[in-house]
C-alpha cells in the first residue's frame, strides 16, 4: 500500500493495521497527531526539551497500547487519553525524582529556553507568566483537565471522555483549576490588570 493511499485511510483503520504488526502504518498516525501530542506535552512538561522526550514517550506508548484499542470507538479521544495519562505519569515521576512538582515554565518565563520559541513574545507580559506559573503549581490531575480543555480546545464532554470520568467530574476539575489560577493571580495582584507589578 503506497503512502498516498494510506493517507486517505481513517485513523481507526490505520490503528488496526499498525496493531497487527505493521509499524509503517503507525508513521501516518504519528504524522497526523504529532503537533497535538507535542503541544499537550509542551504544556504538561513546561519546557521544550522535556516536551520532545515526553512526546516521543507518548507516541511509543500509543503504539504499545494499540492492541487494546477498540476500532469501533473513535481513535482521537483514545489517543489523547493515552497521551494525557502518560504525561501525568511522567509529571509524577519527575516530581519524585526532583523533589518538586515542576521546573519547566520558570525556564521559559525567564527567557532562557535554548530554542527559539515564538511564544516568548506572548510571555513578555508578566500576566501571562503569572498564569503559566499558576498552572505549574496545580495538582497534576487538575492541570491535565485544564490543558485538554484550553490547549486542545476540547469540550467538557470530550475532556470527560478522554479522562474516562463522568462529565460533572471533568467539569469540576476544570473549574477548580481555573479558580486556583484566579486565586493565585489575585494573591499576586494580577487579577484586574494587564501587567502585574514587577518583582513579585
Amino acid at each position, binding site marked *: 500500500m503506497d503512502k498516498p493511499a494510506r493517507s486517505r485511510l481513517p485513523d481507526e483503520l490505520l490503528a488496526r493495521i499498525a496493531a497487527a504488526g505493521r509499524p509503517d502504518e503507525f*508513521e501516518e498516525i504519528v504524522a497526523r497527531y504529532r503537533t497535538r501530542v*507535542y*503541544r499537550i506535552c509542551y504544556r504538561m512538561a513546561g519546557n521544550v526539551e522535556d516536551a520532545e522526550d515526553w512526546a516521543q514517550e507518548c507516541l511509543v506508548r500509543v503504539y*504499545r497500547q494499540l492492541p487494546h484499542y477498540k476500532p469501533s470507538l473513535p481513535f482521537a479521544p483514545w489517543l489523547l487519553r493515552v497521551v494525557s495519562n502518560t504525561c501525568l505519569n511522567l509529571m509524577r515521576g519527575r516530581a519524585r*525524582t526532583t523533589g518538586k512538582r515542576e521546573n519547566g515554565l520558570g525556564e521559559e518565563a525567564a527567557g532562557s529556553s*535554548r530554542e527559539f520559541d515564538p511564544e516568548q513574545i506572548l510571555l513578555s507580559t508578566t500576566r*501571562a507568566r503569572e498564569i503559566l506559573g499558576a498552572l505549574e503549581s496545580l495538582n497534576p490531575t487538575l492541570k491535565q483537565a*485544564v490543558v485538554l480543555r484550553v490547549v486542545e480546545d476540547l469540550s467538557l*464532554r470530550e475532556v470527560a471522555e478522554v479522562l474516562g470520568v463522568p462529565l460533572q467530574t471533568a*467539569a469540576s476539575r476544570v473549574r477548580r483549576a481555573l479558580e486556583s489560577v484566579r486565586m493565585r493571580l489575585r494573591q499576586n495582584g494580577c487579577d484586574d490588570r494587564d501587567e502585574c507589578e514587577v518583582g513579585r
Partner: protein
Amino acid sequence: MTCRWVQDRLILYLAGEASQRDAAKVVRHLERCSACMSAAEALAEAQEAVANAVRTSVVPPSTLDQRAMAQVRSESLGRHWARARSPIGLPRLVAACASACLLVLAFWSGALYARRTAAVPVQVVGSGGETLSLAGLETLHGRELGASAAAVPSVGAESLSKLLSGKVPFKFHVLALDSQGARLVGGGAETAQGQPIVRLTYGLGSETVSLFQTDAMKLALPALRQMQHAGPCYVVGKIGRCSYVVWCRGMTNYIMMSRVKPERLLELAHSAERAMSEGKGSA
C-alpha cells in the same frame, strides 16, 4: 436550588454544555443572585485569560517523528518475538519464566557473547549514514589507556554536561555510574570519521572505560549480532584487545569500550541505559 448547586454547574453553562433544564435554572438564579453572577463573570474571565496564555503555536521538532519511529520499529521486533509465545495463560507464564531464567543464566555465564552462530542481523538505525568504524573508536580509546584512571581526579557529571552542551548537534547523556564502581574521570567532544562524537571516560578498577555517543543519523551501527536484554538491543563483541557494547537510544548510538570482560561491560552498559531511562544525566 442553592448557590452551591448553581456554581457547580456554571462551567458547564458557560461552555454551553449544560442540559436545557439546568441552563434554564442557572439563568433564573443568576438574574436574582449577584454573588453567583460575580462568580460566573470571574470564571469566564479566568477561562479566557488562561486560554490566551496557554494556547501555543509551538511546533514539534522535525526529529520527533524519526525518534519515535526508530523506537517503535525497534519494539515492533520484540513484539514479533513475543507473539511466538503460547497464547494460553499458564503455559505462557511458564514460558516467560523459563525465558527469563535462560536470559539471566546466559547473561552471567557470558554464553550469549561466545555463541556467534546464533547471530541475528541487527536493525541498523540511521542506515543512510556512514557505518561506524569500531576500529577507529578503539584507537581513540587506546589514547587514554596510557593515563592511569586513578591518577585523574573525578569530575562531576553535571559540570561536564554543561561544558559539552552545544558542542555537538545531537542529544547525548553524561552519566554518573559510581553505583556500578565506574568513576567518571573526563570527557569531551571529538571527531570520528569526520563526524562529531561525545566521549566520556570512566575508571573501573585498574581499567578505563570509554563511552562514545554518536548521531545515529550520521554514523550507523555496524551490522553485527544483537542480544535482546530487558528492552534495548545490545551488540556485544571484541575488537583487538577491547570488549565493546553498542546500543541505540532514540537517535543516538552508544558505544562502550574497555579491556574488561564483555559480561562486565554489558552489565555496565545496561546500568547506563537504565539511568538514561530514569531521566538521569541528560545534557
